[in-house]
């Protein structure tokens, strides 16, 4: 992702999203005077969705003060976690640039998508599949800030490591 300091503006479920929410900032971010924060609302309280279901989000970007935003990227992606290299696939991606488009998406915005049939969210032992909505803000200075918000598709129970010897 990006260099510079990490912040925990993303999802509060688990440590990984916290590590993923990385702020790399504009000069103000670098100096510590700017701390962007994205407050995001899902249209399902549980944040659990089913395949082919509609997912709607609304968000509010706080703490950017007078920093000029060059572009905003909004996406719904799934990625793998665990022992292996990370694989990331995008289901929905939208890059908004140009003053009018940015003004429409900052500081408040919303979007809705239809979810795919797969892959379902999965909490395996060495392989995990996670879905998330990301809002990435690009500042005029060339740096960017990303906020990640995890949701689930399906309700697969976590896999347990069954290492017992064969009978």
């Amino acid at each position: 992702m990006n260099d510079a300091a990490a912040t925990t503006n993303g999802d509060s479920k688990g440590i990984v999203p916290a590590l993923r929410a990385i702020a790399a900032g504009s000069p103000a971010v670098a100096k510590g005077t700017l701390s962007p924060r994205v407050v995001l609302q899902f249209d399902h309280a549980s944040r659990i969705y089913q395949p082919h279901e509609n997912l709607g989000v609304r968000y509010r970007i706080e703490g950017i003060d007078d920093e000029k935003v060059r572009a905003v990227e909004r996406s719904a992606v799934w990625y793998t976690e665990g022992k292996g290299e990370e694989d990331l696939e995008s289901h929905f991606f939208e890059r908004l640039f140009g003053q009018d488009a940015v003004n429409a998406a900052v500081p408040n915005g919303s979007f809705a998508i239809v979810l795919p049939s797969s892959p379902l969210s999965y909490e395996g032992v060495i392989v995990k599949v996670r879905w998330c909505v990301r809002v990435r803000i690009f500042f005029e200075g060339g740096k960017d800030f990303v906020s990640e918000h995890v949701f689930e598709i399906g309700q697969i129970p976590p896999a347990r490591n069954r290492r017992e010897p064969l009978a």
Partner: protein
Amino acid sequence: MKLPQFFGKKRGHRRTGSQAWGSFGEGFFYAVLLVSGFVFGGLVLSGTVAYSPTDPDTVVLQHGYDWWMWLLTLLLPGALVAFGGSGVARVIRVWGKSDEHRAASMGLPKLLDTMGQAAQDAPGHPGVPTCENLVNSPGTLLRYRLPLESPESWTLIGFGLFAMLWNAVVLVLAVSAGLDLLSGKTDWLLFMVLVPFAAVGVGGIVVFVWTFLLATAVGPTQFEISDHPLAPGGSYDVLLGQAGTGRFRTLEVFLEVEELATFRQGTDTRTERLVVWRERVKEWHDVELTPGGRFESRFMIDIPADAMHSFASAHNSVHWRIVLRGLSESRPAFTRIFPLVVFPPPAPLLRRPVHSAWQVSP
């Protein structure tokens, strides 16, 4: 002062190093290869580095190569240009783009990923492997015959290739030594090399033959299934056919879910496998196999309703499989694996959560 890090490493859930410096380092590396290829190729084409066998001390401008000679001469610079060029193109393509933007830009970066092999998705099911190769063989009693995925076969091929190549080298050395002897010369150094080489060669043949005998001693296993791909909550009719001779103390059939993760460790690419779910479907004791006949059994397998579907991405996957394990009285235990593909459940089978108003994610 913090020096730039051109190489990143995976540290648990995070990566070391800066992506920008990493991309710069990668681009620089490929650019050097590309320029080297052009320079070397240019020198070869211009004749500057051409070599005259009749006058080895002089670099000459030499024309009149055959086409195959040109092909061979330009092979190395061509490879450098192709490898470097594709690398530079990849770096330029992803330069300055976010991870999500890269993921949304399909095509070239995935094709150029040298480590991961992106699995082909089943139509309409992203992240789910296709099962085309599992449904192209009809069964005798049930709909499909499952293909065998046997690691033993690859071991056998490996031993066979090693034995063949090693003994080819030994043969060349032996012929050379024999010709020397016939001409009245004795090259003791060659003989000293030949003896241990021949011993390893004989050992390679013995290991290959022993592995071959073990692999073929237990007769072929056949699994047929009533439908494919499978779905969570579904029950499927399965036919097992086991040929061979001798007495098996136990024969067991398992339904397993295996996770597979590929990662870099230093300069190596490693793959870790872990069975995370296993269910013994059927078990038989004291099975007697007679020549010409075969042991047959028909039974049902059930896929749990809340099971994870088969999943495959470039470096991670979740596999379903039927596994037959046998313990013979006179031979080592054997394992045979037959892959399955489980699709996500149809929408009505999924439990619907209770919804309320907008949920705030801080």
